[in-house]
């Protein structure tokens, strides 16, 4: 039974005419309110994940739960459908269990608060925000055990409950939840911050409705959704063909020795709508790399990519959802059955963006970007220091941005929106470690007319014994290049013991002991290249050599011969002519070697044994 909405005033909103100027003013004001949510959160949150790295996402929706402004699309619809309770004035809803909301949030670390906004007894909007908590209990510090086989191992699961019920605060509930966390102080502050952000936005919505009138406000939000529908309809008609196009890519492994896992999507236009069909995607994993993908979230991703690739001027909202039909097979990696583990879903999330880019650009290679939205690498380091104090670091790393139609991919930058690194001086001040190196890896970006961004080599020297965990991907299947560009380099993690012994460790690693004095090289992937590397200006390579971004050897991939730092023009011309003659025709995609070759060379190239092909057992 869907949620029951209790309103003191049941008068439906009237549809009134909204002049175009007022409409734009309301849109603008909503956008400002959303910015205000971000600002409030960053200032009051405490965990480095949220306050320094920005791992939190705001949303303002209309009274029917459709997102007007936000980033990841509305989860309110699926929530309301599955919530067997009331939504009332003075309520504030809190949840974290993906299975309770149709995957609207994707792992239990994301705590979501939802504030129904009432004005004069009527539900007029929702404000909501979710943010990644540093620790919610469970089997490992950080609560994202890559080797979990069930969601019950991943810490506290919060079904939709009310922190405030008709204005009454439920302190016991919060005590109970916080008691599960290894970092309760951070979680308390972060939850406060999420709530404060929603309250700020709710106040703005009420002010807006008071200023323009309730009917005018709700009519305007309808029109904003409609406007987006029209714009997207036009884009779909002009950019998506009726012929089916497919694209597939892989998650390298599941952290338990199996992989790669295939994600496949087929896209076509049918009766004015776009179909995104994930048929052909591998079954769910026994480990935690599953991602419970909500259809609306996928619609939003699709819309954002359409807009960014074809017309970045449009502001988007939920208005176009009817135009997109998302089909996800039950029991697949993207729709696992309860109680499959979900905490390692970040790799699939990143990979979906590579797949979307590959799908949308196939018929229009000039708009195509290379791959590199590949993962959101995590490092956990926890233990008890000499003074008996518990420390726990969760850090998100960054790789290389793919080569793009507009130019090179930036080196070592974030593909996820709003994320920044944690300053190393901050890390050294508050955690027992020293960052000895924080540089990008020369040649790691795929060669291309526009090269991929380089990955980062970040070297941690641990000052205390403890355990680490690593979640990363793109160590086995490289990020592809396009339009002649080459794949980027793969990710790699090397632990150098105090005595100099080097151990290549997995990119999905859990509870691995480290000793004071050990060094960890946390090396991320480079972005794929865009366009023919033989067309890149040789002078640029000479410059990048002095910058340490490429090496003399790396320049040869562009057919550029550098001698003592200068371009040898004659040798370059000869080499380029030879390379042109020897290579075959340029394909749209360059995926690098096929899976069998990757497997055969895996140990030699990566220092790690090849993952075994996944075995599909019976699940659920």
């Amino acid at each position, binding site marked *: 039974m869907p949620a029951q909405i209790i309103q003191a005033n049941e008068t439906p909103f009237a549809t009134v005419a909204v002049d175009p100027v007022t409409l734009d003013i309301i849109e603008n004001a909503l956008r400002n309110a959303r910015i205000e949510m971000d600002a409030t959160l*960053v200032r009051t949150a405490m965990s480095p994940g949220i306050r320094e790295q920005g791992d939190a996402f705001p949303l303002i929706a209309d009274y029917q739960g459709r997102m007007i402004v936000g980033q990841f699309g509305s989860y309110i619809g699926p929530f309301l459908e599955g919530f067997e309770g009331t939504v009332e004035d003075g309520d504030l809803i809190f949840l974290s269990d993906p299975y309770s909301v149709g995957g609207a949030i994707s792992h239990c670390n994301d705590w979501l608060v939802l504030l129904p906004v009432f004005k004069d007894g009527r539900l007029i909007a929702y404000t909501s925000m979710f943010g990644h908590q540093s620790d919610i209990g469970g089997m490992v510090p950080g609560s994202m055990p890559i080797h979990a086989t069930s969601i019950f191992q991943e810490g506290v699961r919060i079904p939709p409950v009310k922190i405030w019920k008709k204005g009454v605060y439920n302190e016991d509930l919060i005590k109970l939840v916080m008691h599960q966390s290894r970092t309760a102080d951070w979680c308390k502050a972060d939850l406060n911050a999420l709530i404060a952000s929603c309250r700020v936005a709710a106040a703005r919505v009420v002010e807006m409705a008071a200023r323009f009138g309730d009917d005018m406000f709700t009519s305007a939000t309808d029109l904003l959704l409609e406007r987006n529908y*029209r714009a997207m309809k036009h*884009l779909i008609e002009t950019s998506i063909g009726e012929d089916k196009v497919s694209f597939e890519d892989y998650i390298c492994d599941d952290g338990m020795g199996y992989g790669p896992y295939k994600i496949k999507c087929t896209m076509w236009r049918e009766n004015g709508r776009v179909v995104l069909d994930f048929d052909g995607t591998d079954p769910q994993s026994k480990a935690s790399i599953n991602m419970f993908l909500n259809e609306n979230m996928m619609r939003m991703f699709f819309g*954002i990519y359409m807009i960014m*690739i074809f017309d970045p001027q449009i502001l988007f909202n939920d208005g176009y959802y009817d135009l997109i039909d998302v089909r996800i097979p039950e029991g697949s990696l993207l729709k696992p059955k309860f109680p499959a583990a979900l905490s390692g879903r970040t790799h699939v999330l990143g990979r979906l963006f590579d797949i979307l880019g590959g799908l949308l650009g196939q018929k229009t290679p000039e708009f195509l970007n290379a791959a590199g939205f590949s993962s959101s690498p995590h490092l956990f380091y926890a233990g008890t220091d000499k003074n008996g104090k518990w420390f726990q670091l969760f850090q998100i790393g960054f790789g290389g941005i793919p080569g793009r139609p507009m130019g090179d991919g930036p080196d070592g930058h974030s593909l996820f929106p709003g994320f920044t690194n944690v*300053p190393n001086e901050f890390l*050294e001040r508050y955690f027992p470690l020293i960052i000895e190196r924080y540089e990008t890896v020369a040649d790691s970006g795929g060669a291309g007319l526009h090269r991929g961004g380089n990955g980062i080599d970040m070297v941690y020297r641990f000052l205390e014994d403890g355990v680490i965990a690593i979640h990363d991907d793109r160590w086995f299947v490289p990020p592809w290049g396009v339009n002649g560009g080459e794949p980027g380099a793969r990710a790699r993690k090397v632990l150098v013991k105090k005595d100099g012994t080097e151990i290549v460790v997995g990119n999905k690693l859990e509870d691995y002991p480290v000793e004071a004095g050990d060094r960890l090289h946390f090396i991320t992937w480079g972005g794929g290249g865009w366009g023919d590397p033989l067309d890149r200006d040789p002078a640029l390579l000479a410059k990048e050599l002095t910058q340490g971004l490429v090496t003399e050897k790396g320049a040869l991939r562009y057919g550029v011969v550098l001698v003592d730092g200068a371009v040898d023009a004659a040798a370059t011309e000869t080499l380029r002519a030879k390379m042109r003659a020897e290579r075959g025709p340029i394909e749209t995609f360059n995926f690098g070697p096929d899976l069998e070759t990757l497997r055969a060379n895996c140990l030699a190239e990566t220092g790690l044994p090849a993952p075994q092909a996944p075995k599909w057992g019976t699940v659920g």
Partner: protein
Amino acid sequence: MTYRLGVDVGGTFTDLLLFDQTSGKFWRHKTPSTPHDSSEGILNGVTAICEKAGISPSDVEFFLHGTTVATNAVLEGKGARVGLITTQGYRQVMQIARSFVPGGLAGWIVWPKPEPLAALQDTLEIAGRMDADGVEISPIDDAEIRAVLTQLRDAGVQALTVSLVNAYLNGAHEKRVGELAAEIMPDVPVSLSHEVLPEMQEYERTLTTVANASVRPVMRRYVRNLRDKLRGAGMAGSLSLLRSDGGLMSSEKSEEHPVSLLMSGPAGGVTGAIWVGKNSGIRNILTLDVGGTSTDVALIEGLEARRQRDTEVGHLKVRASALDVKTVGAGGGSIAYVPELTKALRVGPQSAGAVPGPVAYQKGGTLPTVTDANVVLGYLPENLLGGTFQLDREGAKKAVQTIADALGIGLMEAARGIIDIVNENMFGALRMISVQQGYDPRDFALMGFGGAGPLHVNAVARLMGSWPAVSPVSPGVLCALGDATTRMRTETARSFSKRVADTAEEDVIAVLDEMARQTRAELLAEGINEADITSQFELDVRYEGQAFEVPLSIDPETLRRDGLKAVTDRFDAEHLRLFTFNMDSAHELVNLRAVAMGPALDLPAPELPASDGNLDRAKIRDHQLWADGAMVPAAIYDRALLQSGDVIPGPAIVVEMDSTTLIEAGCNGTVDHVGNILINLA
């Protein structure tokens, strides 16, 4: 007689304001700017304004100057070629730039990554390392440093910066590099990060140090040239520049620390507004400085402007105190357009600028701008004062008609729509600095200045509920007025990063006292008397673990008397106001700052004669303008002929040399005793 001369150089005009400190009498002058060498325009202006006042330049004791030279050098990438020396393993600190990509999901697809301010090929590493307690864990190597310095010298860098990891805690390694640099590259100015900004966060500290070094040569050339020219013209008085934080600093100090000048331009308007407020008894003010391409807004509470720790210029955010001025891309030149796909009405941030400018200016502009909409609606009369400048209303109508057609509405509705949207953008910026910071805008007056501020101030005040809407005296040269009327200021900052509970009060006071001595010494060196210097402490406090600090000012006596408890209590109160909740977490003392200020000036404004009650004296003619959906009768007045106590019923327009004030229907404008027009709901 003591004369203070304020000079503000803008893109189009150089504004001057000469102030007789004893009588409060002032003269103003506008002269075209001379971008190839601003000193020419300045000298033209100095000559003209001294003539007007019947004095000679040698009578000017203080020359006070707001400039965008440093800002433009950063924005246009015309700074010096900067070499950077970093700690081994950190060469790409500027290249990685905290990994941040602006825009939302997929924003990376369309983001043009800016080049680092210190080129990567001019960035080199050296061995040696401090830990997070400031203790050396590996030594530097003189031979390596010499080699690196020689390499940078031979490469031809024009300025050198040194920014080593954890140098904010121990600058010994940086100092040694500085010493060797003085030997190897004696002609190249050197900036050390622990001196420029002894604060945690390697990227921000490096960027700030590099930005400073990059604009130093430009600033030095500019200041020295100006000083020579002024001396040549017979001016013997002191030359000071306006800092981003609204204080003045000597021209010599400006050469060393130009990163403090990046918001010098907008700060002038805010300090001008403070002077106006002081003289008309308005203590809480929101400022609305509307220029051709953008609008700056700021909040003044109790005649003190809010300050912030960061200065944002273009895509760069450097750590230097500045007035909390927000800028939106909405000004008189902002272009209105209707995107094909969404059919929405958008205004700005694209601007027609000074060239080609709005259609009505007849300088080649063809796209409809905010100014054109103002002309169409009758808010900007075609025939401005003196008749030297005729606006092309027909041209403006034609341009705005394209918007009306795209939206399917009438011409006047489209013009009013453009104004409404641009006002809304200004409103949005004002909310960010007021409501968002926990202030109620109804407790503030709204002051509009700059060329177009007084045209919009009435409408925006209505949106904000901020009354009165103030059109200050001389709105067009308020920045120059601000330059002329503010005081000397200097500050120094240091990271502290300790829990208040683990901190001995006397330790904090000892550090602050030392910092106070340092800042007072700077002002003493400028020739200010010890007795005239005021010291102030600022402590940045947060709950341990937060990223956001609240700066709290306290005077040394109060700190000694009430202790740190007074500071944490105020933090809790401020946190509650900003975010609606407090926490039982420990308080952390993040940064300490000491501020020293020169003597506060008591500069009265000259009073107007009392009104004779007959407004016809100032009336130029009858007029028609658009209000509430129709053309309505209105009148145009000459501001120079207004008297204290005049009440102008709206709708009306008040014109002067360089600005136009719009009083809307349903409002009255009252002229106060010093000539400000205070607009209130009738």
